[in-house]
């Protein structure tokens, strides 16, 4: 039997650090990536786009996807340990701002200019999503639009042929549906964020985008009459019984299923619902459609709400060149962008993607965003994360018991003021 002698053992121990130090050099052709596209369709489609990148270049992608909700925490834990991947997906807005402020991201201005991305990326998206602290950090991969998605058969059976464009029309629609025994609105606020779109639109349509920007930045208070008015309108809808029972017990897919089954008529959700419904075999335009959130106050600009999914590079990347190549490829290749937007139910960030790639519903969403006066990030991407936490809990609490709205708003105003001081 052969024994390890001391000399061999010590030799191995001394050799280990050397091996570890030389490994990164060998891994220069590898780009590590983490993303939150883990739904059945998203995971497969994202993998396919990465394969296209690998085929077009000499780089290899090392993929570590993390579930959507867990990603929010996971990536920050990795940031705190300075172990971010070379590239990761992230939601443009306050979240990117938060980590850009902490010097955890690598600026991409040079790559952006060299690749001429100004001519490739949709201006609406580029203006709001890519610049932070005067530097460019994010390449938009796609964006979404939130609208009132409905079951066409349910609406037709209820005799509704024209979708509302103003608030009175919307209230009349809800009343009509309810009188026919149909719950008008599905909401799955178990994970809190789906409720935020109601707050976003009610505030944007009544107080306007400028006021909302002030509120999101802590320059206005949740005690203000503008917020009270928006919450009052929301309360009136809940009190009238227009929302499904137990919204806080359901996820957004549960709510989508309720609409797909015809248990509810519509749900206020992002365009990713089309990816989900298409995956269930529903036909866009025939089985489902959408209408923009109705106007409330005359003269208030028509803002569209939604998130922008982007790709960013970690500050400590060991492979900056590979990471930049990947970002550039994913946004500039029209084939990648078209395939991705189809699979994910998203709007392409690349202006050169032929609009004929969109189905009828997505095309309508595309036109709606294009004709909007402004594009606003949804609540949890528009305000700093500590504040978003307070607000998201407030929405869930409100949906549980809207009768306490005054007390809830008073407490929220206090908590938000505290969160802004952090």
């Amino acid at each position, binding site marked *: 039997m052969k024994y390890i002698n001391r000399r061999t053992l010590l030799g191995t121990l001394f050799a280990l650090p050397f091996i570890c130090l030389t490994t990164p050099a060998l891994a220069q052709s590898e780009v590590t990536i983490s993303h939150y596209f883990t739904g059945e369709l998203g995971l497969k489609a994202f993998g396919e786009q990465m394969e296209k990148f690998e085929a077009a270049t000499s780089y290899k992608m090392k993929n570590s996807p993390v579930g959507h909700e867990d990603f929010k925490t996971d990536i920050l834990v990795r940031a705190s340990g300075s172990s971010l991947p070379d590239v990761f997906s992230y939601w443009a807005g306050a979240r990117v701002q938060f*980590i850009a402020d902490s010097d955890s991201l690598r600026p991409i201005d040079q790559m952006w200019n060299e690749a001429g991305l100004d001519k490739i990326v949709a201006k609406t998206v580029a203006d709001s999503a890519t610049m932070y602290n005067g530097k460019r950090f994010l390449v938009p991969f796609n964006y979404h639009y939130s609208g009132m998605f409905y079951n066409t058969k349910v609406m037709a059976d209820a005799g509704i042929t024209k979708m509302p464009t103003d608030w009175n029309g919307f209230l009349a629609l809800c009343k009509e549906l309810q009188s026919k025994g149909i719950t008008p609105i599905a909401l799955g606020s178990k994970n809190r964020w789906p409720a935020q779109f109601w707050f976003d639109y009610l505030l944007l349509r009544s107080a306007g985008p400028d006021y909302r920007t002030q509120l999101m930045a802590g320059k206005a208070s949740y005690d203000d009459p503008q917020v009270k008015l928006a919450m009052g309108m929301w309360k009136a809808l809940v009190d009238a019984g227009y929302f499904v029972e137990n919204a*806080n*017990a359901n996820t957004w897919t549960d709510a989508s299923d309720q609409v797909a089954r015809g248990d509810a008529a519509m749900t206020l959700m992002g365009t990713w619902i089309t990816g989900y419904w298409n995956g269930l075999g529903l036909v866009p335009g025939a089985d489902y459609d959408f209408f923009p959130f109705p106007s409330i106050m005359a003269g208030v600009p028509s803002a569209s709400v939604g998130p922008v999914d982007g790709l960013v590079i970690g500050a400590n990347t060991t492979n900056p060149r590979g990471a930049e190549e990947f970002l550039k490829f994913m946004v500039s290749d029209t084939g990648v962008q078209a395939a991705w937007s189809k699979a994910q139910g998203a709007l392409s960030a690349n202006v050169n993607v032929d609009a004929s790639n969109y189905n009828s519903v997505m095309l309508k969403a595309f036109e709606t965003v294009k004709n909007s006066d402004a594009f606003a990030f949804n609540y949890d991407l528009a305000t700093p994360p*500590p504040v978003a936490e307070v607000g998201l809990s407030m929405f869930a609490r409100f949906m*549980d018991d809207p009768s306490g709205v005054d007390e809830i708003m008073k407490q929220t105003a206090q908590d938000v003021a505290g969160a802004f001081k952090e």
Partner: protein
Amino acid sequence: MERDKRFWRIVLLTPPLLVFSVLIVWPLLSSFYYSFTNWNGFSSNYQFVGLGNFQKIWTDRLFFQATINTIIWMVSALLLPTLLGLVLALLLDSKVRGGKFFKTIFYLPICLSAIVVGQIWIWIYQPNWGLLNTFIEEITGDRFRYAWLAKPDSALFSVIIAWSWQQTGLSMVIYLAGLTAIPSEILESSVSEGATTWQRIWYIVIPLLVPSTVVVIALSVINSLKGFDILYIMTGGGPFNSSDTLAMHMYNESFKKYLIGYGSSISVVLFLIALIIIGIYFRQLRKFDQIYG
């Protein structure tokens, strides 16, 4: 020879000591350090705030809610599985038909991970088609749509029931082992002396099960302190923080609000509480050793 032995001891002990230092000691010391800062988790610019975070704890209403929830969680997570385990062990120790089958069935949940248990109970509690509401509807004949996990009054208790369902099997097995160690002569002589079943249980069996109870309590306390995962899966501390425990509150503050400094101060308080509980437990254990030798 002695030199060789010493060499191998150092070589073999170094890796586990390194792992222990990196994974336990270093994070523990880091937490203490960061609890005096306003670090957000990744910024290199942060300040020392002295005892600021600890002062904030006193004005944090969510901290107090989490403390009350933690007490409810620990007491319930200790009492329910212990009592249910004891009752089941006493029932199954008598020669009932299908005893082995029931022992297996009752023990099975402990083999499942918290994620699986949480998911099973999420389905049971589902308001529209869940087993519990359907059962209540069948019994009462009325439509029943209570959202057990989405209501602040019931969320924590619903998770406690799921937790107890999983943990009872463990207490039951320990008590069954304890019951088999009780000499049959004692029980037989008590029968011949005319003791009733209840008297036998109360005056003979339960006192003789004290060593098993010590083990059950120790495991229950340790497991309840680890009970973060099932809460995370089933409620995530919600709805609106109503089922937040201190561990969950620390997690939310640290990783959802990115207040690592403040989260660290909560973890320090949690550490001190655990230290006190462990201290009390060891003191009682010493007393117990003196009595039972």
